[in-house]
């Protein structure tokens, strides 16, 4: 398990994730909901996904790949990936 997040639960991590995503992509935090589309809500193009990879690495200290994103439609899917990567 990632040591940084040993003491944090998934709920805390999700809230932190909503913070840095809304700030970086200039999106209303209230729109970052599990059922909403990650791509459409954050208005991501292919270059933006690279920024997302960097943000995830810097904020959560986990690495994600292009393959990981193939499974992600919603923020809920995204949180599930984080959970899996952090072995929570």
């Amino acid at each position, binding site marked *: 398990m990632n040591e940084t997040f040993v003491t944090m639960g998934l709920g805390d991590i999700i809230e932190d994730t909503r913070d840095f995503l809304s700030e970086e992509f200039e999106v209303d935090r209230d729109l970052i909901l599990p059922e909403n589309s990650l791509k459409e809500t954050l208005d991501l193009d*292919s*270059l933006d996904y*690279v920024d997302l990879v*960097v943000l995830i690495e810097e904020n959560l200290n986990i690495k994600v*790949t*292009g393959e990981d994103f193939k499974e992600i439609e919603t923020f809920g899917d995204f949180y599930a990936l984080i959970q899996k990567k952090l072995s929570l």
Partner: protein
Amino acid sequence: MIITKENITNFIPHRAPFLMIDNLILANGERFESDFFIEENNVLVRSGYFEESGLIENIAQTCAAGFGYLDHGNGAEPKIGFIGAVTKLEVFELPLVLSKIETVVTPTHQLGNIFLVKGGNYCNGRKLLECEIKIVVT
């Protein structure tokens, strides 16, 4: 030096007068280094200085040469790449004509065919410009 000025066009698609790299000095998975002598007749020289756009292009061509060299070593044809975005750009100073600049590029992330690299140019140890570039490889 791993690719000399005379052979650099075998590894990158750029051609004169838009050739902004001389020698590739180092290329491995973590770091590329090059040098470039700024001639008076360079198309990106204005008022005796090599422009910011030239420094950015020099970083991009260093990246192209580095990846081209690595592809060549793996038996693959060098790929064509395009600058997708330039971010976190800081300009410290511009080099004078007839000076030699050294450039360091570090690939930091890859997502499919998009590479994020950090680059910087130096002249006599002084930093000229640094930025991040997203390069889309075909």
